[in-house]
């Protein structure tokens, strides 16, 4: 049993951390999220150049040989800086392409890893309320019709990976972003991420995969995405925890640092416990994903998501509370930590969905 990171992983973490520290000061980030697309396209090129876009992908699939651990670690450091680049969708897209058979899929991965092309996963629908397994999008031959929601990064994607239903079967399709019959409604989520609803009205699509493999492949890819998302949440939680600790040591009221008040100390202890339990469940998920028991992996990933959805909100809300008024302003990252954790808590399924998913996997284990 080994819970330490490899030296390659440590180097990767350092590289991401340094980048984030340099590029995501409060002002710099504000400028980015207020820009037209809400992203910094030049950063994405940098991600590619530094090898982050393939770090968590196996060599067979065209990546650099890592896996969920690398993705979570990158996302954790991005989370510390509240980076809005759509890294998690990228993880899902690449893992999904790697998880299905077929040459087209394999060919698509290379440009993604190099940052030369962007493909976004388009899996979720409003009726699913976060459950990607709910698919009403209709495939009629190679024409797709339906609406997908909360698609991150659609605004700069070249292609989209769309799940659609053909009778009882779910198929995975490639749709060009500029195809006829594709329309987008762009909006911001409360954490300043840019997302789109994507409506397809008989849009032309290429079938990438069909049959029994598809739901499983989507599940595995979503688990990679979930673990990256949980890694990101851990980064946000950790940043909020320690920023609050520093504030409590500095801020004085009634003639003393407020960090000396026992009730606040105990609150901080509870926050630390939540952070450490999140980290532990992430490690447990790394272990499970490295094994070959799909149910154990499903259970561990959903376990981490449950913890992130509840512990993340708790840490985020208490970070605000302990900061007092300044915590609810735009001007400090504390409110942005909360907003991101609030969105993550619900993204790809809330605590309730993942409790049920965990229980189901556990029953078969």
């Amino acid at each position, binding site marked *: 049993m080994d819970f330490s990171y490899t030296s390659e992983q440590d180097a990767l973490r350092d590289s991401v951390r340094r980048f984030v520290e340099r590029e995501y000061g409060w002002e710099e980030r504000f400028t980015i999220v207020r820009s037209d697309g809400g992203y910094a396209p030049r950063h994405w090129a940098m991600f590619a150049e530094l090898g982050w876009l393939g770090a968590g992908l196996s060599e067979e699939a065209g990546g650099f040989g890592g896996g969920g651990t690398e993705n979570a670690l990158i996302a954790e450091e991005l989370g510390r800086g509240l980076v809005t680049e759509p890294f998690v969708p990228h993880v899902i897209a690449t893992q999904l392409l790697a998880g299905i058979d077929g040459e087209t899929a394999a060919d698509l991965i290379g440009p993604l890893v190099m940052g030369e092309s962007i493909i976004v996963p388009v899996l979720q629908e409003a009726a699913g309320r976060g459950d990607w397994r709910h698919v009403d999008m209709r495939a009629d031959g190679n024409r797709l019709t339906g609406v997908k929601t909360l698609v991150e990064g659609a605004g700069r994607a070249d292609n989209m990976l769309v799940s659609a239903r053909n009778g009882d079967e779910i198929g995975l399709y490639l749709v060009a972003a500029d195809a006829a019959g594709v329309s987008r409604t762009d909006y911001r989520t409360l954490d300043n991420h840019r997302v789109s609803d994507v409506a397809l009205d008989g849009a032309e699509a290429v079938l990438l995969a069909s049959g029994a493999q598809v739901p499983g492949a989507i599940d595995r890819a979503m688990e990679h995405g979930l673990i990256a998302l949980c890694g990101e949440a851990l980064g946000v939680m950790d940043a909020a925890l320690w920023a609050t600790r520093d504030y409590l040591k500095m801020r004085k009221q009634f003639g003393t640092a407020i960090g000396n008040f026992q009730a606040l100390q105990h609150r901080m202890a509870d926050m630390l416990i939540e952070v450490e339990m999140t980290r532990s469940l992430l490690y447990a998920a790394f272990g499970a994903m490295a094994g070959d028991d799909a149910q154990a992996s499903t259970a561990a990933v959903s376990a981490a998501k449950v913890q992130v959805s509840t512990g993340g909100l708790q840490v985020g809300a208490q970070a605000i*509370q302990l900061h007092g008024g300044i915590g609810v302003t735009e001007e400090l990252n504390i409110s942005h930590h909360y907003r991101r954790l609030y969105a993550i808590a619900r993204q790809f399924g809330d605590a309730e969905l993942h409790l049920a998913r965990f229980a189901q996997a556990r029953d078969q284990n």
Partner: protein
Amino acid sequence: MTSYFSAEDTAFRAEVRAFIQANLPPDLARRGRYDYHPRREDQARWAKILAAKGWSVPHFPVAYGGTGWTGVQRFIFEEEMRLAYAPTMDRIGPELVAPVLYTFASEEQRQTYLPGIRTGDTFWAQGFSEPGSGSDLASLRTRAVRDGDDYVVTGQKTWTTEGHHADMIFMLVRTDMEAKPQAGISALMIDLKSPGITRRPIWTIDEGLTVNEFFFDEVPVPAANLVGQEGAGWSYAKFLLTNERTNSAEVPHTKRDIVQLRDIARIEQKNGRPLMEDPSFRNRLARIEIDTMALETAVLRALTSGSHDGGSIASLVKVRGSELRQRVADLAVEALGDRGLAICLNPEGEHRMFEDGLTPPVPDHGIGIAAKAMFRRATTIYGGANEIQRTLIAKTVLEL
């Protein structure tokens, strides 16, 4: 103890409801539905309508325009206002500043300032908090130096609620640097158009404007604007803050939030059925309703038992009420599903930080919900953070 609301109460409620139905302009009700950053002009219009009926400041002494209603009647009135989506009225002037004025100010000051509050012509801010002095008011540093017939005020105030709407500010200032921290504080009324005042908006987590920072650079203030005794400002502030806590249970508002939430849950679907039928959602909604019922009864107990436990029950209902406001707002976000995460402000609202030009696919019943849930994080902080309230409860009620 046998009954709850009396027949008189029920008749009163009917009278209020009829008046609102007949007199609330539809455009005010429409904007009131979004419950979020009301316009000053809407508040003023509604205040005038109420003032014409004599109902704009029910809690005032009758001599200054009050109605003489019982606490329970005022509660019913507030509840009907919320249920009808009347504009949420300005609180600072009528509920916080005015009681200090009619309790401690001179008759001349009362005659000068109370009418404007009553009619909605004058809006007030309150200047208590300073950077570095939030809950710990005794450490405030803004100073007022006597210079002939004026005080000259220099310093900084922050967290000034609705300061961007205000004409006047009720300020705590330090008039005696030598005295003990609490004893050197006085209360001044300052015209915000005075020279030397600048305002900076503080944008908040909801991308909206509620609080402001004010900078005072040698601002001349007529000495006649001193309220009560020099050096007694601390006691006026304590009086004001107790009023703030009592009102902060916000039961009528939460009850209305629940009505709105039930409406949402009947429209939204989960697993192909109305969300209202989902057992887990039902349980959480029921728990919020039960806690609200408990809080409402606690508030009504306080309103009918006289003031003997007003101070302590105020802290208690503030803690529980502020937490409930957060829970009901969060559950509304959840009810909206994917649409709960979109930031979608009231298109008729005021003062947004940022125009992104985007139109999120949010249904009418989802407008403002996410932003409201974000801003509600403040309810457990403002009006004396809940940590302060818990300490107060321990000291005053439990005598620990």
